[in-house]
């Protein structure tokens, strides 16, 4: 039997040992899990695994978390810690002594004295085992190397799934950005392989096969071709019909406060298509389908394959929506100052105001004399005369 002081000492030792052991296990698990997740990100970036596989593996990896906490402790660890403190085996003797033993009071008193002399003692710090040290070093090496490679290849650190940085991957990302105008990615810099958010929450979206994806990409490329042709065609028509003259600055709606896109407008629709030189391109609106809006003449040459991006990452890959937004925000900021920012939200009232402002500027009013037929005029006057006489 042991006294209260000795018992308190033992409790303190046990709690400190358990805390330290748990912290060590948790730290090792975090390091190893981080290294493994970096390897998964690298595999995604290299195109070895796609998102569902990555997510499944990540779930399995994170599921090992309780194993680190509930790893069975060495049953001798408490005894070892006790003996490290109680080198004379005083407490052990007191613990082993039965209540009927003659030496029990003596041992108990000795245990209490020892506990009082030890005061606030903490268990010895145990060094990491060789295997654990090696695992830590390997994990640290993997994390450093992989993140260094991500910075070099992708332009920044990568956590989570990163799409393949091949050309087809960029086309896919570009088309995905059209369907997610509210994502922060669209407004971000031109980094090559950022960790992507989930594309959508529709379960069927994941089942898209390669053929469907290829169709989407082709549609995306066609869309740009159509847009450019439409812009050039409408501008040419306007010029041939005596529209706004070349050097004239067209009217620009000044009061649009947020995004100027038209929600739900089909691609290549009215938007701000072909509105003249130097006009800001329309932003993508949050409408259904998220099709792209028209662009300005100033951006006419900013089509795929025409050197449309001056951004540093342009040589690695191009993203239509990022350049589109960047150009739009640049012009908008230049013209409206910092008070106005391009956003993704657009209310119905703002849309109506934008539409009325936009189409008002295109109303053609010509004051001309009424061109009346002399026969019709004489007939009308004859009828009026007859009606007056009849009355």
């Amino acid at each position, binding site marked *: *039997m*042991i006294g209260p002081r000795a*018992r308190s000492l*033992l*409790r303190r030792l*046990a*709690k400190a*040992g*358990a*805390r330290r*052991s*748990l912290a060590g296990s948790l730290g090792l698990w975090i390091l190893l899990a981080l290294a493994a997740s970096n390897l998964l990100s690298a595999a995604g970036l290299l195109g070895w695994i796609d998102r*569902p596989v990555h*997510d*499944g593996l990540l*779930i*399995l990896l*994170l*599921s*090992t*978390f*309780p*194993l680190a*906490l*509930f*790893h*069975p*402790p*060495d*049953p001798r*660890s*408490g*005894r070892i810690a*006790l003996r490290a403190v109680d080198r004379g085996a005083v407490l*052990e003797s007191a*613990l*082993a002594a039965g209540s009927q033993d003659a030496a029990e009071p003596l041992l108990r008193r000795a245990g209490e004295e020892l506990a009082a002399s030890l005061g606030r003692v903490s268990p010895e710090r145990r060094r990491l085992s060789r295997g654990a040290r090696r695992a830590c070093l390997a994990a640290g090496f993997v994390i450093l190397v992989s993140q260094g490679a991500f910075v070099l290849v992708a332009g920044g650190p990568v956590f989570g799934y990163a799409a393949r940085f091949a050309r087809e991957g960029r086309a896919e990302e570009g088309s995905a950005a059209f369907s997610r105008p509210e994502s922060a990615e669209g407004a971000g810099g031109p980094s090559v392989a950022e960790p992507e*958010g*989930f594309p*959508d*929450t529709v*379960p069927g*979206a*994941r089942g898209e096969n390669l053929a469907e994806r290829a169709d989407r990409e082709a549609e995306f490329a066609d869309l740009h071709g159509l847009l450019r042709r439409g812009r050039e065609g409408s501008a040419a028509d306007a010029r041939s019909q005596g529209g706004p003259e070349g050097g004239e600055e067209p009217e620009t709606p000044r009061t649009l406060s947020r995004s100027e896109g038209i929600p739900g407008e089909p691609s290549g629709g009215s938007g701000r298509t072909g509105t003249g030189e130097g006009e800001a391109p329309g932003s993508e609106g949050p409408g259904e389908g998220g099709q792209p809006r028209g662009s300005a003449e100033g951006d006419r040459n900013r089509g795929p394959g025409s050197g449309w991006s001056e951004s540093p990452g342009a040589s690695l890959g191009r993203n239509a929506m990022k350049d589109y937004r960047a150009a739009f925000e640049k012009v908008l900021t230049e013209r409206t100052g910092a008070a106005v920012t391009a956003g993704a939200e657009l209310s119905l009232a703002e849309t109506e105001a934008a539409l009325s402002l936009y189409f008002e500027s295109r109303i053609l009013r010509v004051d001309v004399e009424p061109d009346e037929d002399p026969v019709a005029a004489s007939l009308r006057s004859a009828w009026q005369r007859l009606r007056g006489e009849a009355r």
Partner: protein
Amino acid sequence: MRPRHGGRMTPVPNRALKALGRWALRIAAAAQEPGTPLLFAVFAAAGAGLYIPAAAVNSILGDRFALPFAVSVLPEEALKLGMAWAAAALARRLGDPGKGLAAVAGATGFAAAENLAYLRAFPDASVFLRLGWALPLHVNGTALFALALASRRPGAAAAAALIAAAAFHAAFNAAAAANPAPLAVAGGIAMNLGICAGLAFAARLRFAWGGILDGKPRL
């Protein structure tokens, strides 16, 4: 080819094969030790396999009988209690009560299989939030069973643990069905992880220091 002591040359593939063989022997030796990762792996696989009958039973109970959450969690908890009992029996046979925590590996396998099934059905980011709820939830219940079965009165303690785990599980299921706010989800995750850490702490105290703190050290 590198010269050996007698001047003979050993092909590199032979050396690689020998090294591979040494590693295989080490792994085999480690697997034969009681309580090594092999035990945990077996329990994790068993837990993952048990998810299928548990999901089937839950589906039947939910669809045909429209039973409430409080009842439909019982099959899962009973399965986990069975795993904990098997692990405790094995631990007693091995002479190390701490091996009873292998049941937690079973719960981990169970939760991982469940989350993978959810990922397949709902492939979006919410599955990771669900992981934060479901994984500690299953693990906490099983750890509670393991601790109860290692106590002085395992029968009564296990019955109390079953009721507590089922109630906790049902409460979380009901909360999840109510489409909670993000703050509530974060709070649930924090609470579950806190309980998980507390149970892990208790398990370390029990299985490493239990005898000493009880005044009955196995010296």
